[in-house]
């Protein structure tokens, strides 16, 4: 049974006729062609599908789309502003915190959620927050460093 719902994704309003129990991930990827969020496991175990819903890191593969109707959704595609990368995106490049890059969008979205809630996380806090993400290439240490570096950049940018 299809329903009309409204999604606010990266500041853009979309009216969609969808089955309300479809996953947010499949709607983003197949209906809106926003493929930055990835499928990795379908059970919320790997974090590759992470997007922000009202600022909170959310596993889009296990989130029925009707639950997020009308709420503000941010995907990796909406993170850079006017072509300027978010400090965490910059930090990922500077630290070289990726190999194949498939987990990267989810890692960055969770990292952004963490930094928004806790601008100066300790290493233990980063590990606890990010532990639901899998990087099979094993770049965990670099991702921790990238989050720390972004925290530093954001601190310096504050007046």
């Amino acid at each position: 049974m299809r329903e009309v719902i409204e999604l606010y994704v990266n500041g853009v309003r979309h009216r969609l006729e969808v089955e309300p129990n479809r996953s947010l991930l499949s709607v983003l990827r197949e209906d809106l062609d926003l493929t930055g969020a990835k499928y990795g496991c379908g059970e919320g175990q790997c974090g590759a599908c992470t997007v922000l819903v009202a600022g909170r890191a959310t596993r889009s593969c296990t989130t029925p789309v009707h639950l997020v109707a009308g709420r503000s959704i941010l995907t990796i595609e909406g993170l850079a502003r006017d072509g300027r990368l978010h400090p965490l995106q910059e930090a990922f490049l500077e630290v070289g915190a990726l190999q194949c890059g498939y987990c990267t969008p989810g890692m960055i979205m969770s990292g952004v959620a963490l930094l928004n809630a806790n601008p100066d996380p300790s290493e233990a806090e980063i590990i606890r927050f990010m532990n639901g993400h899998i990087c099979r290439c094993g770049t965990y240490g670099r991702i921790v460093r990238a989050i720390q570096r972004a925290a530093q950049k954001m601190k310096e940018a504050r007046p």
Partner: protein
Amino acid sequence: MRHDLWTPSGEPERYELFATSVPEGASESTDGERPLPVTRRQFCQALGAGVLVLLLREVRAVQESGGGRRAEIPSMPREISAWLHIANDGRVTVYTGKVEVGQNIRTSLTQVVAEELRVPMERIHLVMGDTDLTPFDLGTFGSRTTPVMAAHLRRVAAATRELLRDLAAERWKVERWAVEIAEGKVRHPASGRSQDIGELTRGQKLSRPIPDTVTLTPPTEWRIIGTSAPKVNGRAFVTGEHRYTSDLKLPGMLYGKVLRPPAFGATLVSVDTREAEAMPGVIVVRDGDFVGVAAPSTEQATRALVAIRAQWKTTPQPSSREIFEYLKKNEIEAEGRSRYVVGSLEDGWRLAEKQWQQTYTVAYIAHAPLEPRAAVAEWKDGRLTVWTGTQRPFGVRSELARAFGLPEDRVRVIVPDTGSGYGGKHTGEAAIEAARLARAAGRPVKVVWTREEEFTWAYFRPAGVIEVRSGMKGDGTITAWEFHTYNSGAAAIRTPYAIPNQWIEFHPTRSPLRQGSYRALAATANHFARETAMDELAHLVGIDPLEFRLKNLKDERLRAVLEAAAHRFGWGKPKTAPDRGMGLAAGFEKGGYVATCAEIAVDRATGEVSVLRVVTAFECGAILNPDHLKNQIEGALVMGLGGALFEAIEFENGKILNPRFSRYRVPRFSDLPQIDVVLLDRRDLPSAGAGETPIVGIAPAIGNAIFHATGMRLRSLPLAPNGLKGETRLP
């Protein structure tokens, strides 16, 4: 029977590729020995004006000893393994059949071209893994990109540079030695003339093979090679712009799903697809045991699949509980069986004052690349084009051509930079499935495997049993070494230690699970057994494990990494706490030398083993990109930690019992030890690949550290899938 187990063309892989369906003849040749996918003339026309430089090699008969697989290439007098084109606007395009799966070769190969051509990296674009555009390549595995493809591209770029020098000298009527090339420009300093290479080549239609002698830039003058250039196109990965195969969408494309049997070895008895076929927009394909659906969305395809009623006939299958007995009982005569004998074991036993033997085992494990197998297939004008994430684009082209009875030139395989492989993406299952569905639907179809499918229907790292027997003098000099590996494979089966009497043998066996390549192949299993055994022997004669290894080791490069790692780690210092321990391991494979030291802690209350810190020293000749090399080593250690401590595929009667990340534990942030990498840069030596070998030391180093901490000797990988809780041996 082959006696020489490791050859420069990577013989062990050939055996370990057995999961693949390599067609008779052609594809089992070494890199480059195939005709052009299109004729050279067509290719030059397609590129338009500009300068094209081809690396040509003497043709050789393919697979001389392959018994019935002999293939000659009569029409092509010479062979092409790489090419480079300079367009009128000065942009440089390099064509290579290698693929990018996260090992960052797009970056390192760009570096070598930039260095030799004297052009900034930003002006160079690599076309990779496209069977219509790139030269034939056997595949991206075996750590061959750096020693082979980087060396080829250096020659191509250096030859192009000299061609540009000739062009400028001719145009300006000056001596060629007086022409300088830097930053993408040719200059004649004496007259002050200067031109961009694009201007120089504009309007030219030149095509030149590479002369036999090309002057390469010596390592002492490298300015781009050897630097930590950042990942090429990294921005596209942190913004989500990069499109992996699973992200592609073609006009009118449908989403495909395939009906899977309930167990390995099951055959289809009957199937009722009527309900699925009645669903709007759904196409059902039945072809023998293949049943698949295609629909306008993944959800609809999944619903259609669920609506199919199928009956399967299953047959009893072995289970993981009994796997090691099964392997020992099911030895087979097969290609890849090999034996290596030095001196005489009889002499070795006679000289030995102490004799010792042990058995080690390793479990099947899964690659679990985060991007599962995926493919998009399109049939158009009698040609099939498939985008897919594979390490063997030309191998998958052959699989497709055979599956659909097409000549290979009617099939094109394109590999977008892929969400990792680790040796697990040599095959084209998803490509064939997508192509079958697309042919029936008359529209493009995308197939993306679910995680459960990837855990079940891909192939595994082989399980194995390794028996070691050794004899020593009382002073710790090893006199005899007998080493039998069942099933795991022959990679790195030979000992690097100087032992006068050896008998080393690889025994192929039947395997109840589909198995194939995995990062470093059997080098992980063989190093685990060998380096654990070395530790056991050291303790048997009461010698420090480092000293014991050095005593039996002549190889200077291996000694160097062992000493470097031990020094950085602070080897030989006392335990930092009662339940902590330190272990080390060393080894050699695929041109790389590695030594790893690990410190672990055991929590007595929970039995949990945590790896606190790891030091790895690695040497692979001249380093192309130090930071990307470090990244590979760190990644190999983290990945290897999973197979060392807790990863294992559990199966029973043809079913995988843990085909999900919630049931198959992989390393996570909280498993991360402090990692310290020591790089030994040997600019005097040719560069070897580094994506695999750094993984081989971590498992035995951890196992030896557990022994140091607890006195318990663990001889099965994974070492502690449930921690050490319930271990009665825990003192």
